């Protein structure tokens, strides 16, 4: 309380008009800041687009793998991050898409694009089965069902000879215009870009918002008119479609789909990469997917080239151990995953202030808007 002799002000100020248009975040980068960001983004895009040509022939298929894992990560992010569901058997959706595509190509002799559509449909159907169960079960029980479903898919569904070629697997040739490794890598990267675009559209529209609202509080969403059942199933369908398409792309990397490729350990890898990447953040999960796609190769190359500890001991067989350690570290100490650690940079690239996050808030604004843990 001031102790001046001046009289208190009279309320004669005019209320400033509320600016409906300029309601974006008040901060704007400086001219230099804009240019710096544009240069950085430009450089990134150039590098990514050039990668298939830059790397050795041996690694080009790895680039395709990175893209595929990225799409799967986005698929998991929709189900686990946006919808708040559990998915410990995601390899089932992935495999269903792979075998769907392979069946179309090998048995029905359809052109490759049609096979991808088939994969999307089978992926969606495979996911709806779980979606229907998820309407009745939550949490732990749902988790068990997803695991059991994954095992059922791996050991039973994917071994039915008439559908999947049994033990020998099914052929999955590449499309005619993208036959070489480099061309195929570009195709996969293109699909990843489309998936990212789709994800952005999802959260910017009513469907994405409704799905996330359900995750936080079903009752409130219902009281606002959100069709709970419909949007829950939609989340599963979208997740299934993305995973199915990823599966089709995956099958055509090595041009064959075999059941053991789509087992429980892959489901766990998918889960780990999504959590480590940062659930809820599209860039984080894609980075997580990329990391785990290259990790075995990375470890092997490091082992060959660096002869000092720890690389002298660590090779590709250490990948599961490192993955598990990263998972535990993320859950216990760094819940936002890579997205949280890289948060300031990711935010800067998206034309926001470069601000270091001081702990509590999860990667809420960087790409999705949600709480951190699974």
């Amino acid at each position, binding site marked *: 309380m001031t102790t001046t002799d001046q009289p208190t002000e009279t309320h004669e100020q005019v209320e400033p008009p*509320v600016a*409906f248009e300029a*309601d974006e*975040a008040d901060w704007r980068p400086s001219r230099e800041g804009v240019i710096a960001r544009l240069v950085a983004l430009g450089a990134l895009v150039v590098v990514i687009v050039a990668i298939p040509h830059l790397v050795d022939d041996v690694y080009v298929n790895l680039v395709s793998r990175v893209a595929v894992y990225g799409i799967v990560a986005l698929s998991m992010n929709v189900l686990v991050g946006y919808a708040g569901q559990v998915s410990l058997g995601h390899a089932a959706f992935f495999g269903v898409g792979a075998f769907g595509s392979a069946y179309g190509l090998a048995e029905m002799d359809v052109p490759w694009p049609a096979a991808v559509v088939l994969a999307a449909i089978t992926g969606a159907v495979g996911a709806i089965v779980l979606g229907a169960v998820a309407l009745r079960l939550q949490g732990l029980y749902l988790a068990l069902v997803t695991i059991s479903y994954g095992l059922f898919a791996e050991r039973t569904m994917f071994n039915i000879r008439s559908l999947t070629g049994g033990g020998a697997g099914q052929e999955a040739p590449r499309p005619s215009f993208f036959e070489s490794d480099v061309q195929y890598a570009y195709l996969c990267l293109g699909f990843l870009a489309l998936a990212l675009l*789709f994800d952005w*559209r*999802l959260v*910017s*529209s*009513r*469907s994405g*918002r*409704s799905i*996330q*609202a359900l*995750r*936080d*509080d079903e*009752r*409130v*969403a*219902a*009281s*606002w*008119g*959100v*069709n*709970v059942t419909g949007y829950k199933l*939609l989340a599963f369908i979208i997740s299934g479609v993305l995973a199915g398409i990823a599966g089709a792309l995956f099958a055509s990397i090595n041009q064959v789909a075999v059941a053991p490729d789509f087992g429980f350990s892959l489901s766990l890898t998918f889960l780990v990469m999504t959590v480590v990447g940062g659930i809820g953040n599209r860039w984080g999960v894609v980075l997580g997917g990329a990391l785990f796609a290259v990790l075995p190769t990375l470890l092997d190359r490091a082992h060959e080239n660096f002869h000092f500890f720890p690389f002298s001991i660590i090779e590709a067989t250490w990948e599961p151990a490192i993955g598990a350690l990263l998972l535990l570290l993320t859950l216990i100490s760094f819940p936002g995953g890579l997205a949280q650690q890289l948060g300031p940079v990711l935010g800067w690239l998206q034309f926001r202030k470069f601000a270091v996050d001081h702990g509590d*808030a*999860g990667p*809420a604004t960087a790409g999705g*808007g*949600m*709480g951190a843990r699974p």
Partner: protein
Amino acid sequence: MAILETDDVSIRFGGVQALTDVSFAVEKAEIVGILGPNGAGKTTFFNCINGFYSPSAGRVHLHGEDVTDLKPEERAKRGLGRTFQQVGLVRSFTVIENLIVAQHKSVKYGLVAGLVGAPWVLEEEAELRRRALEVLDFMDLTEHKHSPVQGLPYGVLKMVEVAAVLATDPEILMLDEPLAGTGPEEGQAFCNRLKDMRRELGLTIVMIEHHVPLVLGTSDYVYVLNFGSLLAEGEPDEIRGNADVAEAYMGEGATTLD
């Protein structure tokens, strides 16, 4: 014709009869108060009206239509809006994002259009934003528009919740203890605002509250629940002097609520 009414709604949970034959009717643009001690079944009653519980007996009518078998989403689409005892908001979103989600049922573009990003979608999104800001302004919450819901003080959250429900463009506003945690001054301010809403927006308001004097001072009609059944109903003055009601609240021997 009553805009909202229930006919002998009863509900049982396991061995407990939570509500017995509760009938009430609300006219358009009325403000109705629901009083009763803790555990009387007030929120349970709301849940039955809303659709979160399915009554073991009795019917619920909205605009004369029997909605007893409809899901909560369906009732929301018919103009029913409500707030919750634990603040009912999407916790991981910001205030303005909540108000945009709340406008769910007024969105006209379809699923595919939204996913593809058609131009009319972008126009409609801008309109949703504009409307959200309008409602925030009406509730004096503009300063919080970009604040994440998590971290805002309880009192502000309760107002944000009301703003969100207003954004759903309801005809009937069901408020479950909106004044919890507020002092008498804020409470009175809120009740005045309720009257403004009734006047400016033509809203019908049903309110569960414990601030008895405020409810009696704001409502046109009051119902009192006790142990799951209707103890009394009437205009505020009648309720004020009702000995049974006084006893229910303040124990044996009390004869009025003052």
